[in-house]
């Protein structure tokens, strides 16, 4: 039995402790917003946040998130309302076929929330673990930059330098 918090609610999973988190979310809890594109930690479609950090849920056995806080795409916005990031992606054209979108949104959401910068190069690094075959990334980067700028304007500290760096980019190491 594994106990975890999913989107603010405590949930219990009774299956095998090594069941992949992505299967627990999709099949166990019916949260099909999280997608599986490769099952090997390469595409990022399965990205969810664990204690605020983006994690590829196809690589994580559920026992590893025992007692931890998991956030999925279903936690953002409301039924009738989009979160500012979702709205920006929609308007900029950051979602085409949409299969990479939930994972992309979660990675970007973590970036915005933990104070990531609006520099396109930094955003590209943050998103490097999420593959998209449709958009060529430009519209996604534009959308994230826009949301970061809006965030900074709201906080009134547009000049504050960003501290966050990208874990995913370091992990993949596919680019110098």
């Amino acid at each position: 039995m594994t106990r975890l918090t999913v989107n603010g609610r405590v949930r219990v999973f009774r299956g095998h402790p090594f069941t992949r988190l992505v299967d627990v979310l999709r099949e166990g809890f019916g949260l099909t917003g999280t997608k599986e594109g490769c099952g090997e930690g390469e595409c990022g479609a399965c990205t969810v946040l664990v204690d605020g950090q983006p994690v590829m849920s196809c690589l994580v056995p559920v026992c590893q998130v025992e007692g931890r806080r998991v956030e999925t795409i279903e936690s953002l916005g409301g039924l009738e309302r989009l979160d500012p990031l979702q709205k920006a992606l929609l308007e900029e054209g950051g979602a085409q076929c949409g299969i990479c979108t939930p994972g992309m949104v979660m990675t970007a959401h973590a970036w915005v929330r933990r104070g990531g910068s609006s520099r396109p190069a930094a955003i590209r690094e943050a998103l490097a673990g999420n593959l998209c075959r449709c958009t060529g990334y430009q519209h996604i980067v534009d959308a994230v930059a826009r949301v970061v700028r809006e965030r900074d304007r709201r906080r009134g500290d547009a000049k504050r330098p960003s501290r966050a760096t990208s874990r995913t980019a370091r992990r993949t190491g596919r680019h110098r």
Partner: protein
Amino acid sequence: MKKKRSGVLRPEGPDKLRGLARYVDDLPFPGGLHGATLRSTVPRGRIRAIRFDPDFPWDECVTATAADIPGQNCVALIEEDQPLLADGEVRHAMEPIVLVAHAERHRVYEALGHIHVEYEPLEPVLSMEDALEAKVPVRAPDNVIKRISIDKGDVDGALAGADVVVEGEYRVPHQEQAYIENQGMTARFEEDGTLLVEGSLQCPYYVQKALVRAFALPKEKVRVVQATTGGGFGGKEEYPSMVAGHAALLARKAGRPVKIVYDRTEDMVATTKRHPARVRHRTGLTREGKLVAQDIDVLMDGGAYATLSPVVLSRGALHATGPYECPNVRVRACMVATNTPPNGAFRGFGAPQTLFAAELHWERIAGALKKDALRLRRLNLVREGSETATGQVLHESVGARDVLEAVVRRGRYSEKKREYARWNRSRRHPSWRGIGVSVCHHGAGFTGSGEAFLASRVALALTRKGEIRVLTSSTEIGQGTIAAFTGLAARTLGVPEEWVTIERADTGLVPDSGPTVASRTCMIVGGLVERAAQRLRERILESTGRMPSTRAEMVREARRLCGREPALRVEEQYTHPPEIRWDEETYRGDAYPVYGYGATVVDLEVDRTTFEVRVRRLTTAVDVGRALSPRLVEGQVMGGVTQALGYALLENADYHDGVMQNPQLTNYLIPTALDTPPLDVMIVQRPYSRGPLGAKGVGELPMDIPAPAVAAAVHDATGLLLTELPILPERILEAFSSDPAHRQR
């Protein structure tokens, strides 16, 4: 299905962003079984026996082989050579032989391990050159799937009289579509015997056609529904018929719904790829650089079965000259069969292969003539009134020169060329820099008389509730069909977009609008939407005198117009303009109704130590007639050029023994956000009189352009002309070391 709210780029977008859109694996599936496929392990052989381990609990499973197919054992497409399940003989590795279904997904894979196939191996043909030699016959009579010849003028005479003749050979590899959603399909039989399949697909009526044949059912008894589809790029044009057939076969035997969803490795190793090709050019020119003859030889590898290969070859051959005018042209194109998994549709459909050769060849020509490749292109590009290799006169909407000049200016081609020449002279810099350009055309719509044969249909319905529904089998696969049709119908009718909905692509509900391929959705099917909307508007105006401006008024009028019917329906069918003529026998005439044009400037650097290529900036201009939604066009162009960058620099499908050795995203690399440079897209509008509101197709063009510009830029940077894709660091290293004469700058 979806309403469009003003200011929303995509009506279906909000659901995608919230994770509410249902892809095939997200569909509720109560009481269903999971299916999986046992595939051949040899490239060619006879099946001696199929053994099921006696100690495995087979009563928990459902299994199916070729013997269970009620109709014809084929995946009906152009030819009927490809079986749904191999029967007696396998012609490529990864060919499906046995199907298994089980209530639990992990058990079904376990079951596959308990089935053993015994083969009598036969000698395979694994390369296109071997296939052409035909020493080992693998497809009667000569291993050739299709040959195409295009002839214009007197090539031999012109070559003999040319001031210079420049020869070159170019090669491109397999390319994987790598949509992020793998192939998947569900199937069940309903109580009245109707076969219902729902899944990830581009062309519902293709799937229906294949199932009708394999299950010996009448059309009305086969219903095909598209689930939200996570990308296709051509890869979901033919293969879904196979997956659907398999799921249906298991469902029929099990008497329960069955779902088959491939994992990444199975999807990459077994499904279709872009055709590898070898292209040879022999080009005659005047001293000034004017083309006098193009002699082009194209060889493509179709893999084990025909799939769509004949048509891919046709498009490849028709684009082989590039967008240039030349009085004497000979194209000899040949598609051979090998014992490798069949290749098929992929965005560009044969054109990226031959255009890579045509465009990069200008670098060779420029070297031979000691003239700038850009100047040479300007001298030869098509313009209005030009005549193509098939004798087609380009009457209108020829933006080739506009797109070239636009990217040259915006990409600062000439300044950068000089600047980088200086940069490269200094050994202190860690990289060489280079700039390259290319310009391409892409025929919009089906080749030749294809559209006449398709005779596509679209309907518009005004419901009693005052809703306008667009009924079409053109699918949304990310490219924006829903948005484009919503906008087109609303604009033509003169109503707000929120009043328009697009019916889901379900053969039980929508007429056959032809396949969602060939950049035809916007131009051809969009044209039908526009015409149907005009007719519906006329019907409404006849009865009311003006277009209702409020919803309440619309509902009132709709009730009156519908009378007793649930909806007022108008249908439009494609009629081929009689002045567009094509002769399939001689390959003469109007190969396409019109062409899109695009040009790219690639600005890159090559690391002097690691030979890694980093693209710094990519500037693209496209002429797609009128852009119905500039933002969607931009998105299509950005996605397409990024796939082309992958083709040029990263994507290396490694084939051994007739099978891909790196079928994972871990080792078959597609561009990440870091591999992709900032993308600059310009839209040049040269409206096309027959397109809806002036639009031509856009989907494929961007895939054609960047690869040759990348190779040209690498040439500019390093002095090395790499004529084979992908341009990997090890290939650059190899080229440096095998070229001792080359000065290390």
